[in-house]
């Protein structure tokens, strides 16, 4: 059992991060804290991809003359990393838009606390 947990330690940490993010989004009352939860959640997905690409006894995906290009198992798969660069860009755009929305909400209602906001929206 201990071995099972230890072998997948990275995934357990990522799982913890996912739960933390979801907890923040569901439980926290402040909209900025909800957004922080969302960011943690998104980051955990990015970490998941990066962790899935990691490999022992392998090197960076640039052709090494000592290894040659035929032994592909000695290189790390670069694709998940490049995919996650795109996902990070998407995440940045989302967070930027979210902050713009939060500013607009604050200008209109002068609060970012959800119970107060719901009261003022009525």
């Amino acid at each position, binding site marked *: 059992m201990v071995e099972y947990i230890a072998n997948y330690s990275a995934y357990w940490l990522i799982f913890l991060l996912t739960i933390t993010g979801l907890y923040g989004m569901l439980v926290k009352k402040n909209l900025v804290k909800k957004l922080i939860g969302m960011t943690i*959640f998104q980051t955990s*997905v990015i970490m998941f991809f990066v962790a*899935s690409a990691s490999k022992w006894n392998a090197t960076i995906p640039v052709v090494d003359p000592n290894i040659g290009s035929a032994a592909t198992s000695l290189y790390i798969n670069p694709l998940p990393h490049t995919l996650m660069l795109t*996902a990070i860009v*998407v995440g940045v755009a989302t967070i930027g*838009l979210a902050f713009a*929305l939060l500013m607009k909400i604050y200008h209109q209602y002068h609060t970012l606390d959800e119970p107060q906001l719901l009261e003022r929206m009525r």
Partner: protein
Amino acid sequence: MIEHLPILIPLTLLMGALLTPLAGALRRSFAYPAALVSILAACGLSFLGLHQVLVRGTMRYHLGGWVPPIGIEYVLDPLASFMTVVILTVGALVFVHSRDVVQNELPEKMVPFFSVSLLLLTGFCGIVLTGDLFNLYVFLEISSLAAYALIAVGEKPSPVAAFRYLLVGTIGASFFLLGLGFLYMITGSLNIADVADILPSVVSEPPVVVGLVLIVTGLAIKMALFPMHGWLPDAYTYAPSAGSALIAPIGTKIGAYVLIRILFYLFDPNYSRLQLPLTSIVIWLSIAGILFGSIMAMAQKELKRMLAYSSVAQIGYIGLGIGLANPLGLVGAVLHTLNHAFMKGGLFLVVGNLRTRLGHSTIPLFDQTLRKAMPWTMASYSLMALSMVGIPPTAGFFSKWYLVLAAIEDSNWTAVGMILLSSLLTAVYFFRVLERVYVRNSSSTGESGEGMNPRETMPSDVESMEVNASMLVPTLVIGGGLVVLGLLNTVIVTEVLMRVIPPGL
């Protein structure tokens, strides 16, 4: 040029989205024509694409000349070409309609509004056309980000609605991405056709099951399947009229489209039906959604909010067709995607007309003067309402007909009963408006009693408030189009939708 069609459709829209602000910077009045030209061009290309696919079969385009599975490919197959035609036809009609609506509601934001709208449609078309799973995620986020922005420029509470939609939508997209991660770990590929080839040999691995469940959960959030619909009513209600007319008909259907792709094209159709009880979960959630949406719609006083809850019910029909997982169900679901896109788009155009002229769309304030003041708008509304209820020969009848047949074939009598019951509920909430406009005496002549002939109590001095041609024509085209679509349904089904059914279903 023909072989470039799959990429030309989203590219035309993307170029339009970039050129519109430039044209607007040159002179503000140039922005709208630039946006209109690009969507009309893309719409023409989508029809050309459908024609080519029907004549020559599926078209594949390798981006940058890289051969899949290494490169990204764009696939114009019968389902994709059908969906692009639906999206862009509705989009073009809404664009023609929305010039005056946007000028009325958002005079300062005309240029960014049309630019972001084109970006939204770029996202939708990209989702439909791409043959690469990660590319699909990126387009899903492009369209979602554009949708958040379009919603946030509406009424006062709209930023709050958009922020909630953003949180929920991002969870949905992240679930989708997480599911992709699991599938990628096992198959090592992201190309839909390639993954579909590899999956049968690894389908019993736990990560595949986890991945599929995560993807379906994420898509259920994106398509607002009950009980993941919480973001929808506020978002559609507070969005500007032109924005909701663009997002409501297409936005949730895109989620349904991706669900069809994943369940029936990526995976073997029998896998998600027999080995995992996923499709039966989708059926029961859809039935709950149909009932919940219809009942909530009956309780609403604001026309736009009523339409939003009606959307929750209607996505239930599409989900039901997908969940039944037989050819008739799939035909019904795809046909209902087309019909509902036209009906909901048209109804939101009617709301736009009402808001432009009356300044509100509150149902209790409607009275019979409307039938003289805006005769054509109300006539279109009547046609759309009949189609929503499903009265032949309007289009809505036929998709429900296929869904009922599919449910009977599956011996799912609850679903059959629910489709019939919800048609009655739909009649209740749509005919409330018709009753106020066409039957009931106006409130100003209330003391004359209810037994009077409404013709006699009709105030004769009602002046016409009908909207101008650029708004009226799209409304009428959709209203009349529903009858045409209904009459042409056999042509659509035999010529296009029969080719949509994937092998093995």
